């Protein structure tokens, strides 16, 4: 082999090494803007212990304040690892359970819970503060996961499209009426989390047996010209006519808290949300955190789960993730209580039932709607 080629190879190797070195700095160095971190004390403290938090793309807290409190209390550094949507995240945690990616997981909900529990990815833990959480949210008797927040998937409507003469629908059954023909857009339960929740609500409401089953309901929705899209973005932003929606359908499957975001993410903020919520037939989603089995930092991981149930963390949840805190006594911002819809009787279903039937129901749904 001749020298120029060897030299070229050596130069290339050098470039690769330099790039690797530069990149390994990203993400591991603490954010220099982290105002909440304490200034260094004269005596050098022991280096902080790393806590890895595996979560989904929608996880949000007020940083650096909220994580900074935990970090300074425990001399820890919380590194957040994102793994796509909730389903994708659970699957990744299951695939790596022999050699876990992280110490603690946040964001598995009741629709994916049984899959995670069946795969034994969590270590049981009775979190400090969990006794204050209503029993209806504590879905695992063995306490492998701890409820952190909940939200309701509900039909939202465009207030501008309805009035006294033509009121918005009051119930799931109304949606098959001629008055609401061609007005509803829903998400595909095979690709969308609110889509799945809405399908589960119809199953819980109309049942699988009897004169009028959930599939009959969907056939009627189909006959009433329901629009089905793949995800929440296409439904809300592109098909829905209310709020920030740019479409022409006045009814959409979204969240009981979407009106809060319509006010919060508007400039200037309106006194009233341009969208409303149909509080009948809402499906309740509960989100959990758990200590991942096999973690090298079990004590710190448990402390983090405890921390997620403290008032500091719980009160920070509403305006970041637009869900209700699991601890009912945690103070909630005024803007949130003003605009979030309270759902008196949400529809629920056991995680085991969802886990056992999900694939079959999605297939039956596809057959009934196509």
């Amino acid at each position, binding site marked *: *082999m*001749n*020298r*120029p*080629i060897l030299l070229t*190879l050596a130069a*290339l190797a050098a*470039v*690769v090494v330099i*790039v690797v070195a*530069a*990149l*390994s700095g*990203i*993400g*591991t160095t603490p954010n220099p803007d982290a105002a909440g971190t304490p200034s260094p004390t004269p005596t050098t403290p022991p280096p902080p212990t790393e806590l*890895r938090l*595996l979560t989904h*793309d*929608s996880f949000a807290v*007020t940083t650096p304040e909220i994580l900074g409190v935990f970090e300074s209390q425990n001399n820890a550094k919380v*590194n*957040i*690892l994102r793994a796509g*949507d909730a389903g*994708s995240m*659970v699957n*990744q945690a299951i*695939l*790596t359970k022999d050699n876990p*990616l992280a110490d603690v997981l946040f964001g598995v909900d009741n629709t994916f819970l049984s899959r995670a529990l069946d795969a034994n990815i969590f270590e049981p833990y009775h979190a400090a503060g969990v006794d204050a959480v209503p029993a209806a949210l504590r879905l695992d008797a063995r306490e492998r996961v701890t409820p952190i927040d909940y939200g309701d998937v509900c039909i939202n409507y465009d207030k501008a499209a309805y009035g006294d003469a033509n009121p918005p629908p009051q119930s799931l059954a109304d949606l098959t009426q001629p008055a609401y023909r061609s007005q509803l857009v829903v998400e595909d339960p*095979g*690709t969308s989390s609110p889509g799945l929740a809405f399908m589960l609500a119809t199953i819980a409401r109309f049942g699988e047996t009897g004169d009028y089953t959930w599939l009959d309901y969907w056939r009627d929705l189909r006959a009433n010209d329901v629009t089905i*899209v*793949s*995800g*929440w*973005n*296409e439904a809300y*932003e*592109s*098909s829905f006519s209310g*709020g*920030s929606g*740019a*479409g022409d359908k006045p009814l959409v499957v979204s969240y009981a808290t979407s009106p809060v*975001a*319509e*006010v919060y*993410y*508007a*400039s*200037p903020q309106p006194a009233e949300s341009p*969208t409303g919520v149909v509080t009948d037939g809402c499906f309740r989603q509960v989100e959990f955190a758990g200590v991942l089995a096999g973690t090298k930092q079990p004590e710190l991981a448990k402390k983090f789960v405890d921390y997620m149930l403290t008032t500091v963390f719980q009160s920070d949840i509403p*305006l*970041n*993730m637009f869900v209700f805190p699991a601890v009912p006594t945690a103070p909630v911002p005024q803007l949130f209580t003003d605009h979030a819809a309270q759902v008196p009787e949400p529809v629920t279903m056991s995680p085991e039932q969802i886990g056992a039937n*999900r*694939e079959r129901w999605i297939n039956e749904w596809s057959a009934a709607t*196509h």
Partner: protein
Amino acid sequence: MDQRVVSRHALTTVALAVLPLAFIGLFFVFPVVTILLRGFAPNGVLDLAAPLQVLARPETLGVAWFTLWQAVLSTLLTLCVGLPGAYLLARFNFPGRRVLNALILVPFVLPTVVVGAAFLALIGPRGPLGLRLDHTIWAILLAHVFYNSAVVVRVVGGLWAQLDPRTEEAARILGASRWGAFRQVTWPLLRPAVLSAASIVFLFTFTSFGVILILGGPGYATIEVAVYRAAAVLLDLPAAATLALLQLCFLAVSLVVYARLQQRAALSQRLVAARVAARPPRGRAEWAFVGVTLALLALVLGLPLATLVERALAGPQGYGLDNFTSLFGQSARGALFVPPIDAIRNSLVFAGGATAICLPLGLLAAAVIAYRRGVLASGFDALLMLPLGTSAVIIGFGFLVSVGQLPIDLRTSPLLIPIAHALVALPFVVRACVPLMRSIDRRLRDAAAVLGASPGRTWRLVDLPIVGRAALIGASFAFAVSLGEFGATLFIVRPEAPTMPIAIFRLLSQPGTLAFGQAMAMATVLMLVTAIAALAFDRLRTTSVGGA
């Protein structure tokens, strides 16, 4: 050739191929084989019952057929828009040419969520054209043309700009018609680059995911979508592995076809500097061509981009920069975990890293493929293309189950992001470089060798100037691919260093006009960054090596 020369050739080939092979082996073959094995042999024993059942489902055949025909049709339509565009930019000098050349690359980097929103605003409900095309095949095809025209314009235009126009002029003087001269003279020289570009467009559209979900809706599914449902939603690894393998088989066949066609198409020729080939349009026919092509590009590429900018500027009090200022002010609160400016920096660092990883590997690989004909070389070429045609979920999940076994745990390292980007960008670099490298006149190289230059020196003097141009085209693609990469990144466990596409994705998943406006503003920033980067690469190309 004596034995010593032959063995030296072989050694050189091995030396050139070893780094790209190691990269592909470690970050593609190893993860994908590991995850496929998990699917086919869940308990360590090969179990073919589940895969056969998946293949026997009637919908599997339907999905495979749809995937194939929409990809073929998308590729042909993309060529229809891209080839006139390539000719326009390669042969004609007109005001704004340089800017247009940079703007062409912009659609390529936009995340599918953004393009989906732009297309739905344009051809969805309440579209200004009064044309409803959402949830139809037309929306899918238009979006594919929008995304991939840049590949054809850049890859084909890169070569076309450097074909000696005098060859075609000579044919015209000798009495050939304009069309005849093109068909007899230019087309044979151009064919390798056209095939090269078409193969990438085919792979890209064959594995289309976001466009299908957003614009096609639940009524359409490619194999890629089916893999996603099986792996990411249902965690049905046997089904996911079967479908992923089916996809790979299709691609292997199409790559063999490609290699066959390419083998026949390769010709070497004299290349000239790009600025020699381009001249102002002359006469009515040429001006008409320029006008029609520009109108076509404006319609297919410009209109969706303009829609995005319009949405970014629109606010509750009319048009203004509110969305942009709020993006950089304090009101971008909870939805983003980091200040937006950090997302821009992260994107640039990752793109720089991906380019730095990808370019050397791509050049080495392109040299092997361009100079060593034969089964091994085309096999190597096909191997490099496969990551582009493999489901992002499969690669992402494969990383998790394989890379964890290595001594250094890279699974949660930020390094994995530029590595994944480099994997996707590598075929672009190779495809941009191979046609140019192949076209180098062998006689020049022979002459240098006869005059006593070592192969390395010959390469430096004869090949390097042309390779330099190829490298810059490749680099601009690698940079752009990384800036816009979204699919693969989504299925990798990412540390908290969001890129611009991820930030846009997160802003879009909040209700509220401000969040939507901020997402569109961020998309506009991404477009600007891309256009500036493309302009910078073009300038480098014309100043450093263009005159060679």
